[in-house]
């Protein structure tokens, strides 16, 4: 809602705080000021009035009342919203407000704050009796008053109190989901979270956002297939020989909502990898792999059923490692791959070779991976090791040209060849 600073000033005898200060007061005591615009000598506020205050605050007069409540400044000619009659009352224990806010506020201060909102306070039989004017009939119960006092008193003044350390029971499903994730990570699987809303399923959405996103997923398999295809294209960039992914999430059928585990593996050895992984899982989480089908590289199973049969956990022994650091943005430009292999004397380590390659190639080299290693004894009796590396080049700003890559590889080749006894194949 838009309101003019100059118009608001007309309600007051005294000068209002400057616009920036007034906006700050609004934000910390009643509503968020979403924007401020200077128009000539005036400032227009964009006030975010929420549904609970709409009935009295969506007018200049109402906002002027709020200024009075927050600052105590007197309104010219009194309150235009206030009409005698139709008052209601709220009764509460004298310490209710302090107990709710967690800070002792004197009755005197409570009265002074509420008076600025035309709310009368009296005490009767050890209780506070509040008289609420008709224009604030949104105030019905004691917690409504606690909010009115708290926001004007200032939430900054509320202290911080922490609960003492204590133990709580462990949620069985949550525990086993996390344990299974750790086992799968150990088997080389990476976790994905995929979309629950798809273009097909058994449960349909009445008001979908798009026509191809109008059903709840009935399985994890469809999403995993798509994710596998996507990641296979980036296998070199990721430095992976095969892609192994998993998701643990809910699926929806006419029979209900179920927790499923889905695995996906790419490549020719997918079936074997799945079989081996499932045997590891089955052993640790006590289920039977006898009639399961791993042949297609994608596998899905009802995890809820499996977890149900497991014993209650008593110790949270799930791995926890502190992950810090800033994520590196993913480049939208294509990557290029080049292989390079070099013979080096026996005593030279992989790390030494990598170091030279990385240094000479520069920042365009985003990934380097050893794909081949073997020893060869030459006719002159010398034994050398061959290291074969896959180099992945990518820029964050542009598509790399062939000539750029050729030039970089050539620099690397020279650097390697210039080492004593090394030669690039």
């Amino acid at each position, binding site marked *: 809602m838009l309101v003019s600073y100059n118009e608001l000033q007309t309600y007051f005898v005294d000068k209002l705080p400057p616009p920036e200060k007034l906006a700050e007061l609004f934000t910390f005591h009643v509503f968020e000021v979403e924007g401020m615009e200077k128009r000539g000598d005036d400032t227009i506020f964009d006030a975010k009035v929420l549904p609970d205050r709409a009935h009295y605050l969506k007018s200049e007069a109402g906002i002027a009342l709020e200024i009075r409540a927050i600052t105590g400044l007197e309104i010219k000619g009194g309150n235009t919203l206030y009409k005698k009659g139709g008052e209601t009352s709220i009764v509460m224990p004298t310490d209710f407000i302090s107990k709710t806010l967690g800070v002792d506020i004197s009755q005197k201060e409570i009265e002074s704050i509420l008076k600025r909102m035309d709310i009368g306070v009296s005490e009767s039989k050890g209780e506070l009796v509040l008289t609420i004017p008709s224009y604030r009939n949104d105030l019905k119960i004691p917690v409504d008053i606690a909010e009115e006092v708290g926001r004007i008193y200032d939430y900054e003044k509320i202290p911080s109190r922490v609960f003492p350390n204590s133990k709580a029971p462990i949620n069985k499903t949550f525990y086993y989901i996390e344990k299974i994730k750790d086992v799968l990570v150990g088997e080389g699987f990476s976790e*994905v979270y995929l979309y629950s809303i798809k273009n097909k399923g058994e449960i349909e959405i009445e008001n979908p956002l798009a026509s191809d996103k109008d059903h709840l997923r009935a399985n994890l398999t469809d999403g995993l297939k798509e994710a596998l295809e996507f990641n296979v294209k980036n296998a070199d960039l990721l430095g992976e020989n095969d892609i192994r992914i998993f998701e643990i999430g809910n699926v929806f059928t006419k029979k209900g909502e179920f927790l499923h585990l889905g695995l996906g593996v790419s490549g020719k050895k997918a079936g074997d990898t799945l079989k081996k992984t499932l045997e590891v899982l089955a052993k640790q989480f006590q289920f039977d792999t006898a009639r399961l089908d791993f042949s297609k590289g994608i596998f899905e199973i009802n995890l809820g059923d499996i977890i149900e049969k497991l014993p209650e956990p008593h110790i949270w022994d799930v791995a926890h490692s502190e992950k810090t650091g800033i994520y590196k943005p993913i480049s939208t430009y294509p990557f290029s791959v080049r292989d390079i292999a070099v013979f080096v004397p026996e005593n030279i380590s992989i790390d030494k070779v990598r170091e030279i390659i990385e240094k000479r190639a520069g920042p365009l080299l985003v990934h380097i991976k050893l794909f081949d290693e073997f020893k060869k004894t030459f006719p002159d009796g010398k034994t050398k090791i061959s290291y074969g590396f896959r180099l992945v080049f990518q820029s964050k700003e542009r598509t790399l040209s062939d000539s750029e890559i050729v030039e970089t590889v050539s620099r690397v080749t020279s650097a390697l060849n210039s080492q004593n006894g090394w030669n690039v194949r």
Partner: protein
Amino acid sequence: MTENTDKGHLHPLTIVIRDIYIIFAELGFSVALGPELETEYYNFDALNIPANHPARSMQDTFWIKDTERKVLRTQTSPVQIRFMETHKPPFKMIAPGRVFRNEATDSTHEVQFFQVEGLAIDKKISMAELKGTLEYFFKKLLGHDVQLRFRPSFFPFTEPSVEVDIFFRGKWLEVMGAGMVHPKVLETGGIDPQKWRGFAFGVGIDRLAMIKYGIDDVRRFYNGDLRLVNQF
């Protein structure tokens, strides 16, 4: 040939959810999970958001066809209602889970995201315990220099209600809604508001992960792209 013997990677949302769990577990909070496909009752009515109430427009909802008033849950508060119905106070719990909003997607908005909601009910809980709990949480999650402040707001299920901002890496960021549980919600959950009171809060986990790790686009969390996941 070298085999792929490297370990895989957990999704950054899992890492953050685990961090969140451990911090709250220290304070005695347990975890509850619940269905993503919910009834209108648990997603709205029980949270003091009746039909035709303007507060319903504060959340864009996916409704399910051909059923008796079912929705994809817009928050994990339904889990809290179910928990109240089946547990006697005092207790403290968090409900992490996937939630859904029917709104246009962009770098900071998705149709699905993860939330964690918290609920603590006891005889003597106030906004001071709410502030203390949240400060403890954010300092442990994001570092000791984090500061926290409350701003007045409105939610139908809490009163007083606040928006929670944190000061992190030089900026104030809005991260969470919170407040004292509305007496109507306590009653609906079978808890006597004359004897018990409590606080509740709700935070988007995706947003926390984006803040903590500097991830630029929320949609990256759900397209299965290992170029994101493998960085963790």
